[in-house]
């Protein structure tokens, strides 16, 4: 941490003549590296170093709540985690929520994008209504839906009770709770998919649609042969991005169901939180965290691959 202030002063100055250490440091050859250093340094202190630490911890049997001297136990934690049925259950829950939420986001986002692809009066204002959810905090969204699902006076429960004769408690059953979380998350992030699809839609040159109109192509053929190829790569980006993000799902679950009923909505992030901060199984949770990190790195690589492919396409 002590390195930081000294390096901050030395950003883009260029006295070529200065000798000694200062001169060495400010050599134009090192300018790029120098500019990057503060950012990397902070990330090192706050991200990379802690990760290395927890990597180390994952090989011990450390518990943050106990004073016992931790003992090295090799890969035992990893073995425990990977053979734990509970962990696989949480992964499964996460996969179900991620899968359904991302699919729902794709459908809704896509339809919204088609709606807003046209230029119409006051479009900007109307678009605002749809874009707002994405900018809200998870906690606010959790509060909205908690209020909606509230069994006695929640709007959703009220409407559902009107339809079916049996009283319905949305968050009472595992399926209902998962649906409740998926709906909240998809509601919040469909606008994101919409934005990406919209970007694809506006990138289609207008003259292609004009040509299709002259060529008397049907609406479906126009969509299939012109529109879809243009949004294909962005849809892939949307799926990957949203998968990575939904994979982290914590706040909404924490607020709406706290993982319940039972552990039916406990995503891997919530489970990690529990293991680390309620049961204080620090080492074990570190091991699991590393497995999660590995998955995210793989997904991030895929995402970057998709970004680069799209960039090549746009050129």
């Amino acid at each position, binding site marked *: 941490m002590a390195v930081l202030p000294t390096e901050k002063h030395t950003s883009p100055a260029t006295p070529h003549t200065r000798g000694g250490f200062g001169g060495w440091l400010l050599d134009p050859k090192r300018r790029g590296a120098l500019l990057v250093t503060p950012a990397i340094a902070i990330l090192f202190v706050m991200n990379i170093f802690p990760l290395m630490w927890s990597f180390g911890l994952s090989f011990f049997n450390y518990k943050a709540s106990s004073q016992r001297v931790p003992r090295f136990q090799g890969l035992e934690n990893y073995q425990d985690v990977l053979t734990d049925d509970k962990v696989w259950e949480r992964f499964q829950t996460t996969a179900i929520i991620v899968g359904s939420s991302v699919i729902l986001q794709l459908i809704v986002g896509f339809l919204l994008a088609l709606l807003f692809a046209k230029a119409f009066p006051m479009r900007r204002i109307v678009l605002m209504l749809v874009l707002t959810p994405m900018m809200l905090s998870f906690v606010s969204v959790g509060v909205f839906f908690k209020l909606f699902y509230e069994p006695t006076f929640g709007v959703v429960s009220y409407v559902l009770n009107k339809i079916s004769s049996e009283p319905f408690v949305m968050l009472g059953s595992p399926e209902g709770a998962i649906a409740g979380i998926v709906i909240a998350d998809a509601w919040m992030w469909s606008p994101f998919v919409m934005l990406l699809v919209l970007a694809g839609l506006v990138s289609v*040159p207008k*003259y*292609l649609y*004009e*040509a*299709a*109109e*002259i*060529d*008397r*192509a*049907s609406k479906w*053929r126009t969509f299939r*042969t*012109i529109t879809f*190829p243009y949004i294909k790569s962005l849809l892939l980006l949307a799926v990957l991005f949203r998968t990575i993000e939904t994979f982290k799902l914590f706040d909404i679950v924490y607020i709406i169901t706290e993982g319940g009923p039972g552990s039916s909505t406990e995503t891997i992030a919530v489970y990690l939180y529990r293991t680390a901060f309620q049961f204080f199984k620090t080492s074990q949770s570190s091991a699991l965290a590393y497995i999660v990190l590995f998955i995210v790195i793989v997904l991030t690589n895929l995402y970057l691959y998709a970004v680069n492919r799209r960039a090549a396409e746009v050129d």
Partner: protein
Amino acid sequence: MTIELKKLTKRFGTLTAVDAIDLNVGDGEVLCLLGPSGCGKTTTLRMVAGLEFATEGDVLLAGKRVNDLAPRDRNVAMSFQFYALYPSLTVAENLAYPLYAEKLSAAEISKRVAQVSKTLQLDGILKRTPGQLAEGEKQRVAVGRSIIRDPKCFLFDEPLSRLDVQLREEMRGEIKEVLQDLSRPTVIVTHDQLEALTMADRIAVMRDGRIEQVDTPHNVFQRPSNLFVAGFIGTPQMNLVPATLKGSDGAGIAEFAFDGGQALKIQVDPAVSQLSPGAKVTLGIRPRNLEICQDPVEDSLSTKIDMVEPMGAETLAHMNDGYRDLRVVTDWRVPLAEGDHVHLRFPPGVTHIFTEDEQVLRSAT
């Protein structure tokens, strides 16, 4: 089948892009809309296609008013400036695209595609996608896609503008050949006069949303009807020299006074006798028609060579006598040196005369 435009007008807000134009294109005729950018030629074409609404006036295709029809209901074929090839489809699929609407059998479609690809020599590239094509190939595919069916008319928006000079020359010939076989009215929009002069049966020269002249390529060049057409058609540009009429003899020999005091007798159109002495006129003469004399002769303009540009077989010389610039094109063998004093003669019958309202003065033929 014909295209008829009646008092066709397009306004974008306060800007009038096309201003009440009347135009007829006959069956099998190739008409070029020629003009500088922003003159409304593309807008006119798009109104014929239905991609743009007419603010006022009518578009008639085959005698039927089509103002309110969508492009798909007008049955027109159009090739776009940027080709508008469908990027995800192969060349063959691009060619077949307009045929799907006609509910043809697969066999019929492939027969037609084969036909067109033979005409335009696309056989080798049918499996490629537009991204893998060279500019000239893209252009041929675009043309192929528009001629593959039998529409009411053919529309081409700047068909050659994206090609380099050499390719453009080549394609001009090819397209001309294709166009000659089409038995439908055809409209080509271009800003390139060479393209218009070589490909069109008639040319409509446009400026600021109006048609300045509609005529055969020959007449547009030889008999420009006003100052704009005179200056726009032909390279190097026609010399346009302001002068004052001193008098004329009724047979077309007239004497003009130029700025700077020189006066000379030039044989122009006999209609010059309609003007009274003292009238301000503009004389127009093509650079190739001016004659250079090394020695002063009667009725010649003495001037100095400012700059010499060799153009291969010919030489372009820029003259300046302190009052006006003149361009002269001569055979490359005529020795010209910058700084030389020479004399310019206006041969009989090649000088156009424009009155103060910029219209040509010419006796009816």
